[in-house]
Every structure is written in structure tokens, then in C-alpha cells.
């Protein structure tokens, strides 16, 4: 700002009150102070009202209720829980369920979304049209309607005795999805550990190959070595344990199944609903990503006789991923948030259990604050990771 009251020599001449009042910096300051004071006063006023109302209704405040005994049962739990446990533990059960159903939903949505997204840019006109129709339909029907619909479908499936058989591997019935699973074996834990070790080894090896290439210019194709490094150790552990290959197949017995593993109807319905809904959005993200690589680059890559799969791996994919990953992550976050509609289908997720806690204790403010904080933390952590990734893959210009 040019201060008109300042003369050439830099000496301030006397300012009249009107000059100060009309100066832009002063007014800006006043507006901001007024806004800050207004927000603070509003907050104070609301806080006082809340305190007053709560004390009038004899509702406790604070997070002490988290240590009280919950006295309700939860249908599905990943950690040990009974009605003698605390509200805090009940909410923890809910959080675990939210994360489980979200993880499963993300996996399913990604597979379907990528398939449809690739079909969307296929050279085959028919396939392309079907993909477009799919995307338009699943994206434009409210996710709650989809979840309720799948819930109704599963509730109306036949009882276990007449269950729909899935190629001898499992059953679909009104008890949910029952499927064959390798019988529990001590080898599995070690195989999992070996898998993690293999992934770490593969990352280190790729990094070394990159160093080697940068130092010498010689290129080592790391695709198959990496596959071997990731899957080799678990396979060796499996062989070392004598290759346990017992598979527990589910069988009908009485009114239910024995053997195998069962996923509850609520879980299947919620997962199907949120995953299919998101898959439409993911398909569009993938399409945009694939189309982001200019045609000229693909032609240029071909003209230097790069093989088609290398064109995909070194020209199209790296550029597509840069476009795909950020919106894909925010789609994942919104899938996690969509899982909060579990209450319409009766799946005990964080919001469903939080709702029960809220109704039992009457401490709505604290219960809702817990739910909001959890989702907020998930969002913030994801966006921090995303920023980190973006910095990693950003086009490095000279």
C-alpha cells in the first residue's frame, strides 16, 4: 500500500483521525478483530448454553463414560468384547469393524473400478458402452439405497439348507457368505512374516538396481526378480512346514454350516453397496488417468521400438498413476466415510456403536465428538500421506 501520509524524506507527517479511520490497513485490522471477537463470542455463548442445558437435564460431561461398563452386546467383534467391557472398548470394536469393512470395500471397489475404467477406454465399442452404462447407474443411485437393496437381497436369500452353491467353494445364504479357507496352521503366521520380509527385500533390491542404473547406465529388469523375492520366502516357509494343504470346506449341517469362514449378511450388504458405488467413481478416475498420456508419447515410444508392455510400464503407467493416485485416495477416504451408513443395515461400525453409546449415556456431544475425531484423523493422515506421495512423484523440472 502506498501511504499517502508519508512524505519523500520518509518522515511521517501528522495523521488526522479520519486518515487513520479511512486507511485500508486500519480497516482491515478492525474487520479481522471484529470477526475474531464475533467467532469467539459465538463459541462462548454456545458453550454456556450447552453447559446450562446439560446441567438442567442432569447429563454428565466429559469423557469419563468411556470407562463405564457398556452393558450391551455386539454381534461382530474382531477383538475380545463382552457386555461387561467398557464403552471405550465398544467404540474400539466399532472402529475395527469400520476399518475392516472399509478395507474389504476398497479392495473390491479397486478391482471392479479398474476393470470398468479400462473397459471404458477399450477399442471395443460394445464393451465401452456397457462400461459407461454401469458407471452412470452406480454413481447416480444413492449409496444408502444400494446398501439397503443388497441387504434386502441377502435377507431374501434361501436358508442354509437351500443355499446357493458357489462352484463348490462356498455358499451364499441368508446367513451371509460362507467360503472355504485353508485350515488354521502355525505355518501361516510365519508365511505372513516371510511375505513382509520379501516385500522389504524387493524394495531394497529395486532401489539397488536403480542406483546401479544411475551409476553405470546399465538397466536390469527387476520385474521377475521382485516377484520371486516377494513370493519366494513365503513359499519356502510353506514347504519348510511340510506344505500343509488342508482346506476347510463349509458343509451344511442342521440349520447352519460347519467349517470354512462366514462373513455376516450385514457385512456383505454394506461392503457390496459402498464398493459398487465407489467403483463407478474409480472407473472414471482410471479413465481420466489413462487418457492423460498424450497419444504422441505412445507413438514416440513405439517408434523407438519399445515393446508394447514396456510402453505400458515405462510410458503410460507412470504418467497415469500420477494422475490417478490423488483422486483415488480421496475416493478411498470417501468410501471409509460412506461406511458410516452401516447403521441402516445393522452392521456394528463406529457410528452405529457410537449411536448406541450416545443413546445409553445421553452424552451426545462427547460421543459425536469421538466419531468426528476418528474420521477427521483418518482424513488428515491420508491427505498428509498424499502430499508426501505428490512430492515424491512430482515432475522434477530443472
Amino acid at each position, binding site marked *: 500500500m502506498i501511504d499517502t501520509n508519508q512524505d519523500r524524506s520518509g518522515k511521517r507527517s501528522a495523521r488526522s483521525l479520519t486518515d487513520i479511520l479511512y486507511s485500508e490497513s486500519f480497516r*482491515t485490522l478492525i*474487520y*479481522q*478483530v471484529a*470477526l*475474531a471477537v464475533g*467467532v469467539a463470542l459465538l463459541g462462548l455463548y*454456545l458453550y454456556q*448454553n*450447552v453447559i*446450562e*442445558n*446439560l446441567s*438442567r437435564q442432569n447429563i454428565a460431561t466429559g469423557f469419563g463414560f468411556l470407562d463405564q461398563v457398556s452393558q450391551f452386546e455386539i454381534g461382530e467383534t474382531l477383538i475380545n468384547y463382552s457386555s461387561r467391557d467398557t464403552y471405550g472398548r465398544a467404540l474400539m470394536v466399532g472402529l475395527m469393524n469400520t476399518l475392516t469393512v472399509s478395507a474389504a470395500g476398497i479392495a473390491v471397489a479397486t478391482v471392479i473400478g479398474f476393470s470398468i475404467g479400462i473397459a471404458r477406454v477399450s*477399442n*471395443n*465399442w*460394445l*464393451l465401452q458402452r*456397457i462400461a459407461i452404462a454401469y458407471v452412470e*447407474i452406480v454413481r*447416480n*443411485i*444413492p*449409496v*444408502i*439405497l444400494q446398501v*439397503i*437393496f443388497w441387504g*434386502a*437381497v441377502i435377507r*431374501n436369500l434361501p436358508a442354509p439348507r437351500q443355499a446357493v452353491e458357489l462352484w463348490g467353494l462356498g455358499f451364499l445364504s441368508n446367513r451371509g457368505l460362507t467360503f472355504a479357507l485353508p485350515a488354521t496352521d502355525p505355518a501361516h503366521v510365519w508365511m505372513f512374516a516371510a511375505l513382509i520380509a520379501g516385500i522389504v527385500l524387493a524394495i531394497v533390491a529395486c532401489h539397488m538396481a536403480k542406483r546401479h542404473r544411475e551409476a553405470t547406465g546399465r538397466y536390469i529388469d527387476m520385474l521377475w526378480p521382485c516377484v520371486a523375492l516377494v513370493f519366494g520366502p513365503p513359499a519356502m516357509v510353506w514347504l519348510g512346514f511340510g506344505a500343509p494343504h488342508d482346506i476347510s470346506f463349509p458343509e451344511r449341517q442342521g440349520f447352519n454350516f460347519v467349517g470354512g469362514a462366514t462373513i455376516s449378511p450385514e457385512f456383505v450388504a454394506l461392503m457390496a453397496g459402498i464398493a459398487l458405488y465407489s467403483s463407478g467413481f474409480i472407473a472414471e478416475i482410471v479413465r481420466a488417468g489413462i487418457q492423460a498420456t498424450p497419444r504422441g508419447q505412445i507413438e514416440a515410444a513405439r517408434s523407438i521400438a519399445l515393446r508394447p508392455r514396456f510402453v505400458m510400464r515405462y510410458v503410460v503407467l507412470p504418467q497415469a498413476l500420477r494422475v490417478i493416485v490423488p483422486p483415488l485416495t480421496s475416493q478411498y477416504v470417501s468410501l471409509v*466415510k*460412506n461406511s*458410516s*451408513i452401516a*447403521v*441402516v443395515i445393522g452392521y456394528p461400525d463406529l*457410528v452405529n456403536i457410537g*449411536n448406541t453409546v*450416545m443413546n445409553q449415556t445421553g452424552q*451426545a*456431544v462427547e460421543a*459425536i465428538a469421538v*466419531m*468426528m475425531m476418528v*474420521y*477427521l484423523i483418518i*482424513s*488428515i493422515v491420508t491427505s498428509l500421506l498424499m502430499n508426501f506421495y505428490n512430492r515424491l512423484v512430482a515432475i522434477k523440472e530443472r
Partner: protein
Amino acid sequence: MTSVSQHPVAKPAAYNPDAKIPALVWLKSNLFSSVWQSLLTVIVAAVLIRFCWFVLDWGVINAVFYTADPDTCRAATGACWAVIVEKHRPMLFGLYPYAEHWRLVLMMVIYLVTIVVSLSPRFWNLRLLVPLWIVATSAIGVLMFGGVFGLRYVPTSEWGGLPLTMLLFTGTVLIGMPIAVLLALGRRAPLPVARSVSVVFIEALRGVPLITILFVAVNVFPLFLPAGVEVNKLLRITIGIAIFFACYQAEVIRGGLQAIPRGQYEAAASISLSYWQTTRRIILPQALRICLPAITNHIIAAMKNTSFVIIIGLFDILTATTAVMQDPLWRSFYIEAYLFVALVYLFFGYALSLYARQVEKWIASGRI
């Protein structure tokens, strides 16, 4: 062999991008470009034909369209569209008193006429629209609430069905858009305090699911008010959805604001327009035009999001249908009922996106 050169050389046809591609060429390049593509086409076509046949067989040939007896439906192998015919009133109008349903029909007619008129540029004239909205809003209010002109009073807790969905949606957009513009301006404001207030508000609300905001509207908001003051639950919920909508829309509008070149601000400053004059006459009209497609997406999303009210027990069209499906006689025909609701949402979503495309054309042609 001089005669060769004597031959008239066939002139290559001038490239014409608008020329119609012959059908066979199109088929070859789009469906049968290689052996694999041909195989794929055949398989996909076979599955598609099978599916279409199933839909036709189930949905039309063997379907029951009209019967008051669910057993007739059960005997048929096809769809039971009769469930919609039989139950359309509780599905479309929810808990609203049965004898008063004509009021909702009239309300929807007034609503749709008002919306259609307001969306046509031909009628964009405040001297027409302001009276229209005043008359329409009061007519809808009288019809919905009643209590005057000998109409029975119907409290908002008995409102329901499609009219409720429409009201929630319209309320969300009408309340949400101004808040969105203010938040977007706040986020781009030269005042750091306004900026941080807007950023915290927008990001915090975008980070949580809509349900938690609805819980706040239902369970916490009453605690904020001094004793004795009450705000209607339907209004609280509408405001909740509207604020949620506004936070997403604010980010879209911010994108539009950022796309405005600096020169526009400087030009406005050079003719000594004030901040609000600049914003209202120069910046916003351009910014909103730029981000119109994204704005439409969020408006359509807002329509879908009204269905979240099922969780807090408002009887919108989805809740009403779910309640109807509790009827043991008709319960097994849930697919038809939910398909109908899905079609309602698809229809309104499609209408909105068609209109938005039209507006984009108007903008491109400089009409608005």
C-alpha cells in the same frame, strides 16, 4: 511403357472430418479390429443379449402389472410391478395423512412449475421471479402445513415421501449455495483471520461423514440454544445437509475464483470498484461460469445425499419405501420397489445433468 503415366491419377479424396464413416468400416474398426476383439465382441454381445432377454422376460412378459392380491404375483415368474401400483401412495407420500394426499400432488405440480420456470432464461427477470417465488413458497407452505382455509394442520413430523425429498433438496441448495460462496470468498479473502476461520470450517466438515453432522443437527444443536427456544427438526436437518453441501461446493467455487486472472481484479481496482462491487459484478459471475460442471456434480450429489435422512428417521421416499417393505404380504417384491426408487433418483439426476449441459451451451454461445 509411357502409357502408364498417361493414366489419369486417382485424386485422393480431400480429408473431410465430418464425412460419414461407412457402416462396415465402422464395424470393422470398432468391433472386429482383430481376432481377439471379434471374439470379445461376440462373447459380450451374447451375454448382453441374454441379459436383455432376461430383463424382458422378467420385467415385461411374465410380469404382473396390476393386482391387489400378492398371491397372484407370487404365482407369476416375472416381476410384480403391482406392488408399486398398490403401494405407490405410502411410497410417494410417506406418513402424510391419507385423505390429504391431493395437497402433496398439488404441491409437487406447483414446485415443478416454479422450478422449470426459474430455470428457463426466458423468464430470468426479477420482476417475474420474485413474485412467483413468493406466491409459490406461500402456496406450498399452506398446502404442506394446512391449518388455514379449512385445511387440516399437518406437523412437519408427518411430512414424507417424494415431496419431502424435494423440499430437503431445494432447501439444501438454496441455503447451501450462499454459504458456499461466502466460505469460498472467505478462503480467498485478504484477511488472514477470515481465511483461517473458513479453512478450518471447510476442512473439518469435509473430513467427517454426513451422518455425524446429522447427529449434531438432531442431538447437539438443541443444546446450543438457550432454554425455551426450539428449532424445528426438519429445518435443523436441512441446515445440516446444507452446511455439509456448502463445504464441498466452497472448494469448487474456490477453484473457479483461482482461475480468474489477476488482471480482472486490477482492472476492477483501477475503476475504483469496492471489494464487494468487484466480487459481485466482476469476479463471481466469471468464477461460477468456469466451475459450473463441478457445481452441478455437487448439486446432484446433494440430491442423493438427502437419502441420508433415513438414519435419523425422516420419511423421505427411501425411508417410506423401506417402511412399506416391512409389510409381510408384499415384502418379497422388494426388488421392484427399490428399482422404482432408484429410477426416481436416476430420473432427477439425469434431468439435472441435462439441464447443466444446456447451461454450458448457453454459456459457450454467450447467451448468459
